């Protein structure tokens, strides 16, 4: 995937800030966020809900790929 926000290892609230920034930057479309804590996943899911982005989560062991989409 071309657009990736790598938020692995970053502490709260940086994953949310980076995701939020990306959402504002592209306005709509698709990108992925990589996180490695449940907290980051939950926070990004709340942000996506708040801003109307559809979300798909792929959990791989301790890492998690979140695909965010908005038409």
């Amino acid at each position, binding site marked *: 995937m071309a657009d990736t926000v790598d938020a692995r290892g970053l502490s709260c609230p940086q994953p949310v800030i980076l995701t939020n920034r990306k959402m504002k930057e592209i306005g709509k479309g698709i990108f992925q966020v990589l996180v490695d804590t*449940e907290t980051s996943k939950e926070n990004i899911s709340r942000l996506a809900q708040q801003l109307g982005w559809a979300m798909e989560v792929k959990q791989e062991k301790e890492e998690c790929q979140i695909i965010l989409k908005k038409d």
Partner: protein
Amino acid sequence: MSKATQFFGSRWGMISAGVFVGVFAPLLQHWGNPGNMGICVACMERDIAGALGLHRAALVQYIRPEVIGFVLGALIAALLFREFRPRGGSSPVVRFFLGFFAMIGALVFLGCPWRALLRLAGGDGNAILGLAGLSVGIWIGVLFLKSGYTLGRSQKEMKFAGWIFPMVMVGLLGLLLLAPQFGRTPEGVLTGPIFFSQKGPGSQHAPILISLIIGLCVGFLAQRTRLCTMGAIRDVILIRSTHLLSGILGILIAALVVNLLLGQFKAGFSEQPIAQTNQLWNFMGMALSGLAFALAGGCPGRQLFLSGEGDGDAAIFATGMIVGAGFAHNFSMVSSPAGVGAYGPMSVMIGLIFCLIIGFTMREKIA
């Protein structure tokens, strides 16, 4: 399990964690803890520092079982829900000193963010200035965060690394129960190495088992819900999210109700328990703490819960707070009901300068 996860992640989960703290903190006070100090992470870590002899302020020395419970309760939750992830290496020295100065700010105000809420819920008007300072400190932290501030990424660590801090807590529990006395004064009188206050706030405590169980429950709930006072204010400013805020409103309202029911509510500014009335330094102390918490990514409670999940960076912050408490008392920085300490204002200014330097210099392009 997934239903439980869903509930804890919801707004009602967050509110229930806040209400739990808000109900049991005043009850802990009722059962013996000091005034408006049913739960105060900063004060309790300060008492632990004193009990270990890191400072010798005779009135505030006790190994608070609540703190032990916070870490171990979070550990249990993290293990049960498969979130125990030993990690670390995100600017540990910076985090140590953020914890160090956060404690100094908290001891100038006389409380952590939770105690600020509990003091307000007990009618202590001085807490308003503290909460205002806390908010301003966090707001400054948000400005740094928005402009690219970061302490860098943490790395996965070996499993054992994550167990060290919880094991330290088990060790503290042992010291609390055994309270060994094998030190000697020059006159040959038995003293230390564990010190418990005979009078003053350190001598006031609920029964050990009750404190420990409540601590464990709070640790468990807070790990699941991610309850964080600093985060609550930060998220409102940063992303207009009121999720965490609903938790701290739960604390405030529940504590107010329970205080009224128990007859512990006393409105006013003067003669409040373990409080001082110099409003400038109530504000500045908490502004320093708020900034340090924002730069470190969590209030002192949250740092303990993260430590229980295996987060070594949070454990370093908590250790910095405990060491900071030792220095704060030894160097006359702490406030007392008589007013601010001789070197309190100066050390708050040094702490603010430190945090500002960190905020301006620690940044990188990480996207």
